[in-house]
């Protein structure tokens, strides 16, 4: 099995559901250990031709409650993105060219949150090694065009093909951050990491995302992924 096939299989297994919804607890930790918490609700729907739609509603804290973020993705095309800020009462179309930017102040970027195409990288199987007694493929992903990272090293569990760790290197080739994906649960036959921690080695900050109430294939309607629902809220 080639490195590309491993990554592809991992992606396909995670993306096998037609749609999903989840509650998210996002904890932002600064270098002194101070914590900020945000709760969100996310809905994702995939189409037949690799297109997808997602919408995120911010539930807490109070000053961001009601904010929503909508993305329509199509292959070989820049994403269409809209942001609804209740303080303005307006939906604003925003540029998607900044996928390397922080997602809502976290250590995750829009790219990390799934905004990438598997074919934008070349993959090499470096070695195999265990993490927490689980044997993993260690794969080096090099972008064909280094837009956001110069390199990623991905640890994918051999038994269930779920990525459990990713090291990110910045465009200068320096070690930037590490993502740990844990608390893997079998939800409707899909092995789902329900805890994602991203630790930025350069600024010493981290973000933890915990998923709960994850449900797949609920038959989400396209209506949800519209400006109508952005304004209405979850």
């Amino acid at each position: 099995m080639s490195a590309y096939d491993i990554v592809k299989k991992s992606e396909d297994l995670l993306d096998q559901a037609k749609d999903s919804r989840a509650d998210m607890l996002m904890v932002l930790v600064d270098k002194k250990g101070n914590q900020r918490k945000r709760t969100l609700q996310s809905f994702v729907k995939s189409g037949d031709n690799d297109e997808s739609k997602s919408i995120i509603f911010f539930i807490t804290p109070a000053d961001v409650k009601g904010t929503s973020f909508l993305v329509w993705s199509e292959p070989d095309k820049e994403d269409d993105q809209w942001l609804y800020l209740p303080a303005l009462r307006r939906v604003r179309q925003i540029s998607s060219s900044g996928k390397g930017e922080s997602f809502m102040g976290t250590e995750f970027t829009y790219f990390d949150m799934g905004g990438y195409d598997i074919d934008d990288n070349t993959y090499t199987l470096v070695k195999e090694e265990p993490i927490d007694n689980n044997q993993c493929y260690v794969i080096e992903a090099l972008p064909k065009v280094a837009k956001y990272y110069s390199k990623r090293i991905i640890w994918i569990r051999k038994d269930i093909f779920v990525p459990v760790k990713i090291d990110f290197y910045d465009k200068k080739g320096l070690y930037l951050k590490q993502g740990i994906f844990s608390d893997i649960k079998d939800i409707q036959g899909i092995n789902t990491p329900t805890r994602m921690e991203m630790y930025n080695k350069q600024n010493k900050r981290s973000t933890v995302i915990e998923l709960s109430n994850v449900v797949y294939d609920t038959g989400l309607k396209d209506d949800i992924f519209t400006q109508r629902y952005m304004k209405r809220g979850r």
Partner: protein
Amino acid sequence: MKAYGCASLILIFIHLMPPALAAYQYDRQDSSISLYGYLQGEARYALDDDTPDEDPSQVLNLDLRANLGSWNSMMLVIKGIDDGKVIDPGSARLFNEFDRIYQDRNPSVDIDEAYIDLYTRYMDVRLGIQKFAWGRLDEINPTDNLNTEDLTRGGTDDEVERKIGAPSLKVSMFSGIADIEMVWIPRYVPYRLPNPQERWFPEVMKPPAVIETETLIGEIPVLTTYHDIDLPALNVRNSGGGVRVSGYIAGVDLSLSYFTGYDPMPVTDAATDITVTLEDVLALSYDIDAHVDITPRISRIHVFGFDLTTTVGSFTIRGEGAYFKDKIYNRKLSSVLAQELAGQRQEEMIEEFMQAYISSGGTDTARTFHVEPDMAILEDSMKYGAGIDYIYGDTSVSLQCIQEYMPGFDEDKPVYFIKDGVDTVVTASFKQFFMQNTLEINLDAAHDIQFRDIIFKPSVKYSFTDNLQMCIGAILIEGKYDDALLGQFRDNDEAFAWLRCNF
């Protein structure tokens, strides 16, 4: 004393109240109810010596939302306000009213929004007190005329904050081709103004204290009385409303809109009593004074508009424009009064007074002439603008240019806020987050090209915790002209600080 009271209240609240007033959320299947809110203490320090001071203000905001299924929801936002800037005009009513311009907010309760929603597959219906947000530009939206504004701070508050909720019905219909929003506002809700003695009372509504004339009488003193609004009868003909059709076409969010109703901008009439008094019979010397009654005037307008937004590379482009039919512009009060009290007009009044004096046998030593000068210029006009936004990580920059064009401008009849038939405003906004969005710096500025005035609003917001925020900032205004939108407030520079506890 009041400052200490405010600080104490905030400190007590921060330490004791959050556990008791914690946000309440109840979810059960498709039903939910939630209560959120904040308590905010605010202090303002006037940087110019010649404007009145303000006491600290406190606001308790409660936000209640509920739904009994996916087909409905309700929302109620109530604000309890103890406002240090608004002097009690004498009303003892607790709730802010929907039929008055001058309101009591010391203290008061404001129903900011209160409505119920009904959802069906292709249609949403919202009934109640609502705030609308048409258009795509920031802060200045030519197509957005459904809500009037609370101008007790001169319009320097954020856009949604200063909007006054209007009791109304909104029906939104959705299809794959276009979304249609229809609004009906049965009764006009007037804008709100501070009292004339307060800092943010518009200078353009103050007649000059004296009118200089080139006659022997010289200066004519002017007294002014301000009256509240007299609303039109509640009937369908006097209601307002609009329709907005929106679609997403080839990457562009595009809307077309139409509004008919009363113009949300303040316009006034200025009925004037000019009294001629005989001071000295032997010398035949006269005294003249003027008493101006400033009365709000409302007029129906029709607004045809469009707005759009799209992205080009890393930028978001926004545009908006509107054609105003039958818009009324207020003539400059000083020029109107000077015209009414000009030399020839004085001579006519004195002559008429003398005839009355003689025919009364010398007993009628004073005579009042009532004039109702035409304060209004009825004109069709246009207002349009474009903006560009750039967001990179924690930084966002926004630039806008908005112009108002009055084709029939008559330089012999000058109006407020427009010079030579054109008014162009350029705005710039810069926002930068630091420390995982804990610290936020905002720099907002607007410059009026024709009047050469500028407003600059820097502020820094810091979140101590998720629920406790503080903001310090300033409002700095420079301008030469009293008849300019910004320049009229050039003596209103202030520094401010607020502390907000969310729950």
